[in-house]
């Protein structure tokens, strides 16, 4: 069994429009891959389709997590199988505290009849919160309710740290962060980096890649991966902008 997340020939349709077109990508555990691309190109669609959002219809393809097809699984099963999605726009959930939410998520990962060790849970939670410079007062706050943009993103990383996924997809975790927050978030991610975790870092800007140095960079345009390379590709993109990609990979104009 190969320890990798394999996306094979994935096509995804949203409300009758095909957004992802025959996209393939392999993320081995232990590696960090960046996906870059202009707005509207389908990056979030990829992330949401992988997580199993009901609005995203998979018309063909496979996604194998350590050899197991996750497209057959419910949203929560995928998560328990080891997939984590850091949302670009995390939901606000009034009345559900971060602590209760994470306890439920941890409990769901235990065998039936087994109870979460509350003391150990809080100990770990506080450790991770300290690492991410999140005030401990946040444990009793409702998830994301009234959080600033940066607080929401840090909260996503906190959840990732607590749930210890095998594969994490981070959708524009850098957007809306000031430089200090970006540094804190990046440090957090770097600590989670390791042989047991593969990270797919979706970003519009190269900036975060100065902090979280990727093993590979993929360029996405118009629902496809059009170019892949090492970390230097990100710098090239930053310098040249996305226009050259658009020109180089434009589909031939539809003939009348």
């Amino acid at each position, binding site marked *: 069994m190969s320890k990798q997340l394999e996306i094979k020939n994935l096509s995804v349709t949203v409300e009758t429009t095909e957004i992802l077109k025959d996209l393939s990508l392999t993320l081995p555990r232990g590696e960090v891959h960046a996906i870059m691309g202009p707005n509207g190109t389908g990056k979030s669609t990829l992330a949401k389709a992988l997580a199993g959002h009901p609005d995203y219809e998979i018309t063909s393809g496979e996604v194998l997590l350590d050899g197991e097809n996750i497209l057959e699984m419910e949203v*929560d099963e995928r*998560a328990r199988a080891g997939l984590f999605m850091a*949302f670009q726009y*995390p939901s606000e959930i*009034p009345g*559900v505290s971060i602590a209760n*939410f994470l306890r439920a998520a941890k409990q769901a990962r235990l065998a039936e009849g087994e109870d979460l060790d509350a003391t150990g849970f809080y100990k770990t939670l506080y450790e991770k919160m300290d690492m991410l410079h999140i005030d401990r007062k946040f444990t009793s706050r409702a998830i994301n309710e009234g959080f600033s943009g940066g607080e929401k993103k840090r909260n996503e990383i906190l959840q990732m740290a607590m749930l210890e996924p095998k594969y994490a997809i981070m959708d524009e975790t850098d957007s809306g962060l000031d430089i200090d927050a970006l540094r804190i978030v990046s440090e957090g991610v770097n600590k989670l980096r390791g042989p047991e975790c593969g990270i797919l870092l979706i970003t519009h800007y190269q900036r975060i890649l100065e902090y979280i140095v990727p093993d590979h960079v993929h360029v996405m345009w118009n629902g496809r991966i059009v170019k892949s390379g090492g970390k230097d590709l990100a710098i090239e993109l930053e310098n040249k902008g996305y226009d050259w990609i658009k020109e180089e990979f434009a589909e031939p104009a539809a003939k009348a």
Partner: protein
Amino acid sequence: MKTANGLADQEIFDAHLASQSASGAPEWWLDLKRESWRRFRKLPMPMRKDENWRFASLGGVKLDGYELGDSSPPEIADKEVLKRSENVRQRAGRLVFSNDRLMDSEAISEEWAKKGVIWLPLEQAVREHEDLLRKHFMAQPIKLGSEKFSELHGALCSAGSFLYVPKGVEVDLPLVAFHWTDRNNAALFPHTLLIADDMAKVTLVDFFSAHDRSSRNFICGVNDLYAGPGARVTYISAQDWGRDSLAFHLNSTQAFKDAFITSLNVNVGGRQARNESHSQVLGEGAHTQMQSLTVATGKQEFDQRTLQTHFKGRSVSDLLYKNALLDDARTIFSGLIKVEEDAQQTDAYQTNRNLLLSPTAESNSLPGLEILANDVKCSHGATSGQIDDEQLHYMRARGIPEPVAKQLLVFGFFEDILGKLENEEIAENLRTLIRSQF
């Protein structure tokens, strides 16, 4: 004694009066009861055309087939009842009733008794505090449709708590009353009278509960709250009557100058349960919060009628009624804000939120405003909606199974109220009650 026509039978009243008299109730009290009984008999049962009963299932509003709760001894041993009445450990005093009989009276702690706080079973208060009782007992107008049942309560009630907190005294632990029933067909008339004088501060909690979840009972409870100038009063009730019961809980609240009153009703019990709540702002600067949380399951009907009257200005009334509906349950919320001409600079809010967890559940909302002053801020709103799909997805994306995620969202729906309660032990009790419905 079960009679042909049930609670409207003269024999029932005669027997009650005789037992009251035998237990030493004063003549003025018996007279009050006779008057109430006379008015009760004259008033008609609610009728379909009555605006106050719109949407209510009148077919279930019947008085027959019940007997007075205290007509025979309770079946469940005292010790067991008391054990079940231990859920609020941090308290200043406790009263426990079963089938309208007093089971236990835990006097108020010495510390507050010395300061003049009175905490007594109603029957004892009637004998010992005639002035206060005459002035306050059922002295508030009932306007929301249950006039007849209110008179029945006046005629037949004997069990309940009386709480008086003198000027400037702050009781920082809650007073707790339990009303149990362990007998099918028992009719109960629990009463709560809370009087907080100027600048006093107090919290009172009522627990209403049937030992047997399927119990059939008739309940008509009244709770009256009086907050003198600057007083701070918190009243909480948790209603968990048997699922074949008809329950009325009638509240009236008076808030004088700069008083602050919070009342919270948590409802999960009954087959058909009606809450009427009338909040009167009688002094400038007063603030009343009227809150209610309901979990409606099966074929339950919860009928909520509210009135916020502002007689004086610079005052606030803030109503928030939240219902979670499952199965084939129904809720009715009908609320009116009335701002009198003199009550300038009033803020009055009324919100009813219904969370529909089943396609066959039904919520009805009838919000209303009647504003005679011109410088006011008033709003009313009612929403009915389902669980938010994006929130559900977010939780599931963390590995939480759908049923658990839904439950967390439903509990979360109530947290904006429960999370703000000052007393964590009481909040936790209410959470447990709500959770046990799922």
